[in-house]
């Protein structure tokens, strides 16, 4: 953080976010064309409606409306009884009708908030409320393509008419870090609800922060704000906001006033650059969309929507802490990945059954560790999510149980998990096949220890003379005798007893 932005400097960033989330529906916002963000062939998912043929009419996608309502409710917004669509008029080749169907003065959701956990004093964390001004539905535009060296441009309408939820916060965010935490929390909520993939890299979640900086002692909002575009990852978001804060603070420090402009983040240069946009005030000539009736949400509809909201990340975090006593960092890491959390919870319920009684906390802790470490590593390497892997929660739970019961060592457990990941199957079978079962039988271990003690008289003498190192050597020899399958704890205990 730049020197002049230390809280003590008095220059205080004021940040509001505009976030576009592409909703995951089967078809587009106002027609039956598939809504598929992964389609790579241009103009494949189009029809007469989303290419703006004369005489075609929009019909609102019920599922998109429902998802918007639910996200609004999850963000603690007020959902009014009536909502309507409006036309936003402007010309651009990727906008087939010459207007975008959006929502102007009656958005689906208004006046909500999202509480996020921000770093507090003394390394702890504190809750901070970010107010949500509104969330409204609109249709996306297509994409203009400019072939290199060509004297023409092309338009791909696959994305035209896909449903977007635009979420606008109040300027309650005070740092790049807070912005990032907010975005991650929002992303998780969207994913938990199943409203979208909210993937910034893929463009299914897009961010436009509005940034300004207060001078020391200034209480009112700054008279300007700078909008930053072209941010397509969490990392860029953080860098771009930090850069902008520093740039503006510098101008203010020198007695200047930053211009109200739109900037674009240039990742290569590591800086924001003013976008060459015509800065004439755009008049979009909004008016109510006459082709679409007013939306009416009955009390029953809203109650049903509310009831369909699954457990959200914050609730899940609290429950994991309460029920499993997991460390905060583990909880956060787990819940960040929706599918992994689901996998974990399924594995836990399997463990419950396997254990046949209330789950020992130890199981949960172990399962979480294995999920976050070895399993995550395998998943990341294969670029798949847990639900796509061959490891079932049932088999995973069994593996955890084998380890916990010392039937297999942790090291061997890793080999078994890798095999399960590669081929699927039950861990006990794989353990047998690989000959990895751990020996805990005291008689067998004692036999090996006796052999080692009798064959290594010098080391035994050294240990008895106080050389601690020799104990480790003797353990190693015993493990070798046991072909590495000895339960280390039992080997340790028995050897110590033997040498007393």
């Amino acid at each position, binding site marked *: 953080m730049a020197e002049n932005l230390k809280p003590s400097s008095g220059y205080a960033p004021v940040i509001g976010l505009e976030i576009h989330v592409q909703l995951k529906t089967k078809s587009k916002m106002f027609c039956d064309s598939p809504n598929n963000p992964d389609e790579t062939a241009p103009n494949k998912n189009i029809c*007469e409606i989303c*290419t*703006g*043929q*004369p*005489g*075609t*009419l*929009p*019909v*609102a996608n019920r599922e998109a409306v429902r998802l918007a309502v639910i996200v609004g409710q999850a963000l603690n917004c007020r959902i009014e009884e009536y909502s309507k669509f409006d*036309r936003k*008029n402007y*010309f651009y*080749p990727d906008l*087939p*009708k*010459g*207007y975008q169907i959006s929502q102007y003065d009656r958005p689906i959701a208004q006046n909500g908030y999202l509480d996020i956990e921000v770093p507090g004093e003394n390394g702890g964390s504190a809750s901070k409320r970010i107010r949500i001004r509104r969330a409204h539905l609109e249709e996306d535009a297509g994409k203009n393509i400019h072939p290199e060296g060509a004297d023409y441009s092309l*338009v791909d309408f696959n994305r035209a008419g896909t449903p977007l939820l635009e979420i606008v916060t109040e300027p309650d965010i005070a740092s790049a870090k807070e912005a990032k935490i907010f975005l991650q929390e929002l992303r998780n909520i969207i994913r938990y609800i199943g409203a979208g993939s909210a993937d910034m890299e893929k463009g299914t979640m897009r961010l436009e922060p509005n940034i300004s900086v207060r001078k020391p002692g200034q209480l009112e909002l700054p008279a300007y704000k700078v909008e930053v575009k072209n941010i397509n990852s969490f990392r860029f978001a953080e860098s771009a906001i930090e850069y902008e804060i520093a740039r503006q603070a510098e101008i203010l420090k020198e007695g200047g006033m930053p211009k109200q402009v739109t900037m674009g983040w240039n990742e290569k240069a590591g800086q924001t650059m003013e976008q060459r946009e015509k800065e004439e005030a755009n*008049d979009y*000539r*909004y*008016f109510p969309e*006459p*082709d*679409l*009736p007013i939306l009416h949400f009955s009390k029953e509809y809203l109650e049903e929507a509310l009831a369909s909201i699954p457990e959200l990340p914050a609730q899940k975090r609290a429950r994991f802490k309460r029920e499993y006593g997991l460390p905060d960092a583990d909880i956060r890491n787990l819940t960040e990945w929706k599918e992994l959390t689901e996998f974990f919870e399924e594995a836990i319920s399997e463990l419950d059954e396997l254990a046949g009684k209330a789950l020992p906390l130890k199981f949960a802790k172990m399962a979480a560790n294995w999920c976050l470490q070895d399993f995550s590593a395998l998943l990341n390497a294969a670029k798949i999510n847990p639900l796509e892997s061959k490891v079932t929660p049932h088999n995973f739970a069994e593996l955890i149980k084998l380890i916990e019961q010392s039937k297999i060592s942790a090291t061997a457990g890793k080999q078994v998990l890798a095999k399960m990941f590669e081929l699927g199957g039950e861990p006990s079978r794989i353990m047998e096949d690989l000959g990895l079962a751990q020996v805990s039988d005291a008689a067998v271990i004692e036999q090996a220890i006796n052999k080692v003690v009798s064959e290594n008289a010098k080391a035994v003498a050294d240990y008895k003379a106080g050389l601690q190192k020799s104990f480790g050597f003797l353990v190693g020899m015993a493990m070798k005798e046991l072909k590495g399958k000895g339960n280390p704890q039992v080997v340790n205990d028995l050897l110590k007893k033997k040498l007393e």
Partner: protein
Amino acid sequence: MDASFSEISELHEKLKNKEISSVELTEYFLQRIKKHNPQINAYLTVTEDAALEEAKEADKIIARRGKISVFTGIPFGIKDLFCTKGIRTTASSKILENYVPPFDATSVQKMRAENAIILGKTNLDEFAHGSSTETSAFGESKNPWDTSRIPGGSSGGSAAAVAAGLAPLALATETGGSIRQPSSLCGVSGWKPTYGRVSRYGVISMTSSNDSIGAIGRSVRDLALTAEVMSGRDEKDATTGNREVPQYSANLRTNLKGMKIGVPAEYFIDGMEDDVKKRVLDAIEELRKLGAEIIDVSLPLTKYGSLVYAIVTPSEISSNLSRFDGIRYGHQAKDARDLAEIYSKTRAQGFGDEAKRRIMTGTYALSAGYYEAYYLKAQKVRRLLVDEFNNVFEKVDCLVCASSPNVAPKIGAAKDNPLFGYIADQLNIPAAMAGLPALSVPCGFGAARDGADGGASSSVAGVQMPVGLQIIGPQWGEQKIFDAGHAYQTVTDWHKKMPPDFVPASPLPGKRK
């Protein structure tokens, strides 16, 4: 009666009884179009080959099935504002001169499903902006009763085609009189439905909030039959109502006992031609004789209708015409150097003056700072108009008045007289803005005038032009207006009159009784 001026139900009987085939009937109309269209420019596009193919199919169906739809094998025309799959659709604009839609409008699809035969596409004012067809980029249509006169508009091509016996029926649209007024001027019957009764899908939008899709035909019975096909909820048009479609034609009344018919004082206005007023009063007398109770009513907000229209219409038009940008279809300027020029030149070259005027007016009315004063206020007044109609329809079943304050003026005359449209608007626009159903039925003839000033200019000796009676119903009250219109046509024969120059010398060939 000859086929050219027969009603659909009559033609259907002949088809069903194998007196004629659909191919013969279609060929007959195609020949008449070839012969007479140059006189009146009613059709912009004639789909001869496809029509004959469809007629062959229809004949097979007639041969195969005992029971056929009343429209099977019946030729008809379509206003060139309806998208027709594979058939050029121009909206009478240069900007769509070569546009061929990849889909059918819902109403076209419904007529095709009945195996009706598309003869071609009829002329209109460019994008339906006008009431004379004079704003068409492809020349105005002419009134079959006197080809030096306008047929009215915007559905002037459809009205002229039916009036001249070049189609027994033509699909048409209305935003503020575009079915009623040309029907009146051409002496044919026209139906403007309740807003939301017929799907707008695939009909090029003018004013989305009151565009109505209807038809022009030779009788009210034909229109009732057509309404049964065209009406109903369409999943592709969210503004269509989810109401049952009654069998309008089966229930048509021949007497009007118990029906209360209102005569609104505000609709009998200064500037109306004397003959028009007389014919309409005569018609009201006929309705009374049929058993209806005639009641004087008042609609004091009538005068505000045109003001509301003057704001809402261009506002929505300015947005609805934005898609004509030269990017995906239609005309694109050849000499544009950058994106801004593609837009400005394409639209400057492609749109006619009236479209440009409305785009500019509407853009202004929707601009920041003016929206509240104009568009928003107009919509509030519109609500009051609706309420006023609702109140009066608690007392009466329908309202009657003239469809047009004048008979058809000379081509070009309307342009010089700003009042021409204004007075006509008084009669047509309030009901349109309120989304009400209405009919225009022929009710006699009046002396033609030289100008379009309604009475001020002298009448032309000997030339008699049609007058139309307008019947306005409450929302979803189609049955009531069809009843009144049909009963009227059972005791009058104005709707059977034929313009002399278009009466066929030789009747339809084929097996005759």
